[in-house]
């Protein structure tokens, strides 16, 4: 049954994520400056990598494809990347806030990753709003594909410009420094979690994409049933 396959896929994804966290919490040393709280990095950074990396790349590829060969199927694929990206931007922002509070004493800091993720979250929400405000058809596919490309091209530009702006005005945050001066065991655990979250994101995307296709098919079938 298709449903049980999807449930199984989701469960496998969750198990993988928990394996990653277990490894990170069990086999990595405590940070000398931040203590155990630094371990939120194993959720925060993989979530950011998924949102800013994998989901953005998925959105870019499906958007370009949407312009070259427009179809409802490819639009649903783009939309699924947007929704999964939104989940991981939210996780990135929440975990970033928690980490910032425990490290800096403030819930927010204008570091490049958090700022870019915040702007990306707004853009992804706006994508969904635009999607819902347009009528179904080739024009909607084109418009959403154009927006997808715009967002994906602009996000690295936003990241670099905020990063340079920060360099001029504020010292690098520990969040940014952390990657460069990491213990090898921490680094390996981080890479593992990035990889496992990427698999989980892809599984989430597949389930959501199937879900949207099924909804589309049901709508189509009910139209054809009308005499």
């Amino acid at each position, binding site marked *: 049954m298709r449903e049980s396959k999807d449930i199984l896929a989701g469960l496998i994804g969750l198990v993988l994520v928990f394996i990653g966290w277990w490894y990170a919490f069990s086999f990595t040393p405590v940070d000398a400056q931040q203590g155990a709280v630094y371990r939120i990095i194993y959720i925060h950074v993989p979530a950011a990598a998924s949102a800013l990396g994998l989901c953005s790349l998925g959105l870019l590829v499906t958007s370009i494809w949407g*312009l070259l060969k427009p179809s409802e199927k490819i639009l649903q694929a783009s939309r699924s990347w947007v929704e999964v990206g939104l989940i991981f931007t939210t996780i990135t922002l929440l975990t970033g806030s928690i980490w910032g509070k425990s490290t800096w004493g403030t819930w927010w800091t204008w570091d490049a990753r958090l700022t870019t993720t915040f*702007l*990306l979250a*707004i*853009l992804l*929400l*706006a994508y969904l*709003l*635009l999607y819902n*405000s*347009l*009528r179904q058809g*080739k*024009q909607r596919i*084109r*418009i959403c*594909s*154009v*927006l997808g*490309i*715009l*967002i994906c*091209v*602009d996000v690295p*530009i*936003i990241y*670099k*410009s*905020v990063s*340079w*702006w920060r360099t*001029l005005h504020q010292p690098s945050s520990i969040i940014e420094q952390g990657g460069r001066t990491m213990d090898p065991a921490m680094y390996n655990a981080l890479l593992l979690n990035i990889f496992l979250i990427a698999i989980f994101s892809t599984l989430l995307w597949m389930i959501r994409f199937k879900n949207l296709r099924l909804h589309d098919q049901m709508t189509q079938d009910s139209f054809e049933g009308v005499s």
Partner: protein
Amino acid sequence: MTTFLRQLTSLTTHFIRVELANLERLLSPILFSTTILILFFFAFSPMDQEVFVKVYIAQTFLSMFFALQIGFARIFEPDDQDDAFTLLRTYKPIPEAWFLSKYIVITLFGVLVISSTMGLSIFFNQSINISVASWSVFLVAILALLGIAALGLLLSAMMLKADAKQILYPLLYFPLTTPVLLAAVQCSQEILINNMSLSELLSSWLGLLLVFDAIYIILSTLLFGELVKSE
């Protein structure tokens, strides 16, 4: 090439005529930026001398960005009122000519908004010790306009048939133009506070601004073609 130039000329002159036929479209953003400037002034006054220049730059650029956003969002209104946009699609003009003609109009409009906003802001922010009037800062604002006008035009075309475009447009426009705002503000601060010249800034924020402009103009021209091409 001849067809391109001919279409560019007819479209540009036509769109300018259409804009001038309704002066409200030009006056409203200028009045809006004036109002925003006044509100900023009330919110920030009185100011310490050390933050005076930074606040002037923030006030001026934000007022311009808000006013330009209103103008950009409405650029296709004349084409949409009686669905002339759809009819224009059936005439199959060269998409680049169509985009450039609207871009020329929107940039001219933007120059007027920037000139009036900056002039007024300089007038409001007069100080005995510091002068904020600078042709270099004006040029930076114009360069910022070149990039955001291209993006603003593309977003406007995308949202022609969308519901709730009044809220959707700023939600997309402001985050996407953040790099331009950052670059323009940093350039202006370097010019007014650190007395840097434009040539010195070419290797930093001004250079970045030019790169952003190039990316936005090229991307917007290409993607506009995808939106208006016939099926």
